[in-house]
């Protein structure tokens, strides 16, 4: 228990120390958006008759008529009070948009990461156990294939085969069948909300919608995870303690799983953390292909139309997620290897 308390305190301290970085990200994005060419007011005043007057109205609405330092101060004040501004694109508060969309992205990314880990770690271990064998080459080939095919290609391919040709998958439009009713929102994660509501049909429908996009994302990240597992397992299997464990006649699975894998897992956790953060921000193509209402496609649309507030909100969110994920990874380190403490 005291160890746990110490971990929490350390984690809290760690989080506080990352606040200046978050602030830096915030200011940097704010300035970057204003330096980029492209005037959002002109873009959004694009009705057939929109002239100078409309542009001025929008500029005023977005607060762009004030000098940049003043805009920055107002923005920081708003962010401090929990308001990330309003999106011109959806007409909603950015906080509301992100709250609606983040669970969608997280659910997809978690599932994809889970699929990737469940596939990659055994594959990596197998490859490491028989280096140079046909299995090893098979895994290498599979990984190369996964990395070579961009996610939107694999996504479109999966749609073509499972939806268009075979008709097995539901139509690839969003998180749940358009005709189905949604469960009352508790967490925003549909799989969890459906379970809470006791609606198993709904759960199954949501699961079916999730599986193709999650697969196409997972395919892409299996490679780094499997390769890291393999490399780290090879080191671990060649080490003294494994030789000792073998020599005292421990069962092979115990040697592999308890001794070798546990020691080999640290770099895998690190990579998994990085992969997770990257996936969350970079799965825009998958979100587009599957009409997934996530944060990444939202941010891309906002960027194309120079809609400042959502882009800034998105970057801040991603930075926060990155900080939290890193923290989690550090805590997991401690569990995987008690010698490691976070400080």
């Amino acid at each position, binding site marked *: 228990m005291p160890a746990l308390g110490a971990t929490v305190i350390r984690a809290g301290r760690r989080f506080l120390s990352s606040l200046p970085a978050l602030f830096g990200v915030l200011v940097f994005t704010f300035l970057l958006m204003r330096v980029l060419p492209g005037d959002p007011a002109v873009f959004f*005043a694009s*009705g057939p008759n929109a002239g100078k007057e409309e542009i001025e109205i929008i500029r005023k609405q977005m607060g762009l008529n004030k000098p940049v330092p003043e805009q920055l101060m107002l923005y920081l004040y708003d962010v401090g009070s929990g308001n990330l501004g309003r999106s011109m*694109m*959806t*007409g909603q508060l950015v906080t509301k948009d992100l709250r609606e969309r983040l669970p969608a992205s997280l659910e997809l990314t978690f599932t994809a990461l889970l699929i990737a880990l469940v596939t990659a770690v055994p594959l990596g271990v197998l490859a490491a156990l028989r280096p140079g064998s046909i299995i090893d080459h098979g895994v290498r080939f599979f990984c190369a294939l996964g990395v070579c095919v961009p996610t939107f290609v694999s996504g479109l391919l999966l749609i073509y085969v499972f939806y268009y040709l075979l008709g097995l998958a539901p139509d690839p439009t969003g998180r749940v069948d*358009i*005709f189905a009713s949604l469960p009352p929102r508790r967490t925003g994660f549909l799989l969890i909300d459906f379970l809470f509501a006791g609606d198993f*049909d709904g759960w199954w429908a949501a699961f079916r919608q999730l599986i193709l996009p999650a697969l196409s994302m997972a395919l892409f990240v299996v490679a780094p995870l499997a390769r890291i597992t393999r490399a780290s397992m090879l080191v671990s299997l060649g080490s003294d303690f494994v030789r000792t464990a073998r020599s005292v006649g421990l069962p092979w699975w115990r040697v592999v799983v308890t001794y070798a894998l546990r020691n080999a897992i640290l770099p895998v956790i690190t990579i998994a953390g990085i992969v997770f953060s990257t996936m969350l921000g970079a799965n825009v193509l998958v979100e*587009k292909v599957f009409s997934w209402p996530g944060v990444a496609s939202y941010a891309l649309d906002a960027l194309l139309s120079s809609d400042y507030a959502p882009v800034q909100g998105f970057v801040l969110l991603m930075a926060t997620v990155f900080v939290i994920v890193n923290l989690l990874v550090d805590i997991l380190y401690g569990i995987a290897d008690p010698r490691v403490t976070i400080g």
Partner: protein
Amino acid sequence: MSVTGSRRLLMVVASIALSLAAGSVQAQTRSETLRYVTGASVNTLDPNIPGSTREAFAVSLSTYDRLVSFGRKQLNGKWVFDLGKITGELAESYDVSPDGLKMTFRLRKDAKFQDGTPVTAEDVKWSLDRVVTAPVLGKAQLLTGSMTSADQFKVIDPLTIEVTLPKPDKLALPNLATVYPIIFNSKVAKAHATADDPWALAWLKENTAGSGAYKIESFKPGEQVIMARNAAWNRGTADKSAFFKRVIVQSVPEPATRANLVERGDADLVIDLQASDVQSLEAKGKLKVISTPQYNAVTFVSMNNQIPPFDNVNVRRAVAFALPYDDMFKAALFGRGSPLFGATWADGKPSSGAYPIPQPVKLDLEKAKEYLKAAGMPDGFSTTFSFNVGQASTAEPMAALVKESLAKIGIKVDIQKLPDAQMSTQINEKKLPFFTEGIVAWLPSTDYFYRNFYTGNQRWNYSSINNPDLVEIAQKARFEPDAAKYEEDGVKLNAIHFNEIPQIPLWQPSQDAVMAPSVEGYTYQFHRQVDYRDLNRK
């Protein structure tokens, strides 16, 4: 173990049975539901809000009524909106005074808002006042119909409203049929107005208070809108409520996915597929494809007439004769549209006073070289050709062909692909020398096109042309009551256009509506979206 096992089995069986039952219920309502998929999204329920999307226009046309609406006519076997036929929507009838200065609308006695209260002239007055007073998009639109002040709208009695005009303006009445002057339930709207927001803009953006054919069931900006039929609505063409009980407007960003959805029968209607997908779906013959040339839209290659070398008319002429029109038309649109090139004008006179008309230009490199020589640039020059990312699927192949062809007469072209917001900013600042863009007019008359797209130092004057004759004729034509004289003015304007060639009209792209074979009644509308009220299923 076995108990939980069998219980689980029972649960699975029950859930399968349930889902089958649900499936059959769904199948019954499915045919009464229209699922429309689009690459764009709805961002407001009030089309007047600055920044509102075209999809938002389509939704508001179903949730609100206007005083009048356009009729429809057949053009080459396809239904299109009819500017010349204006019928009552909330108005039972209307009169225009002989001097054209007064329009009187008598409201339908049976028209009710969705909350059951009757539609009164007070509501109409409030709504029209809002369009011309509040900071909304409709203000600039109604300006084109000489409606600028709340004083012009007068309540005569609870069912009669009068609109007075400073000048007889042909476009005044059609303007009231456009997207913006929708009629709000003023009591409800006023109840949500605040001191800062006297016209309830914020509330109406996310709520509706109208009398239209559909009620909003759920609205998720950027994702989907679900609407349920208003059974009491009877302003349709056949004086009955709309056909579909439910309309789902869903955003599906990936065009290939939209094509799959409609081909598999999961979506009923889509109007923004890629030309190549439309081509292949049409070839398969399973779906209904209605292609209507967007006769109120034009795609151009524009040149900035104020920046050298395009300030020289001979350079512009050289470019006009050096574009590979046929190849561009095929590569960009797969030939889906109506071309505006390759015409022959008898004795070099414009063939009509309409706008746009096919221009007497074609690929003729010898002629282009002569013009370049006449411009004093026989060796050509370098420039950039820009287009926006949003139009990349058509503009990219086109740009490559432009570059290739202009290279043959010595003009070196760099292709520049700009994010949409950057492109509109640069156009607004008049910084782009050479680019492609499109225009659309809701009320396509010759003078309207010339006044909006060829005059003044403003954004829509893409070519930045400044020709006093053109301005004068276009302004005069606006209030020209005599049809023959109007036609004459149109011919003059078209002649100036060809002589100056400020920009090169290429084509009018088709609106390809791809739908399930059972969907009927599709009509091409001025706003280039689907009016869901037109549709039914056989």
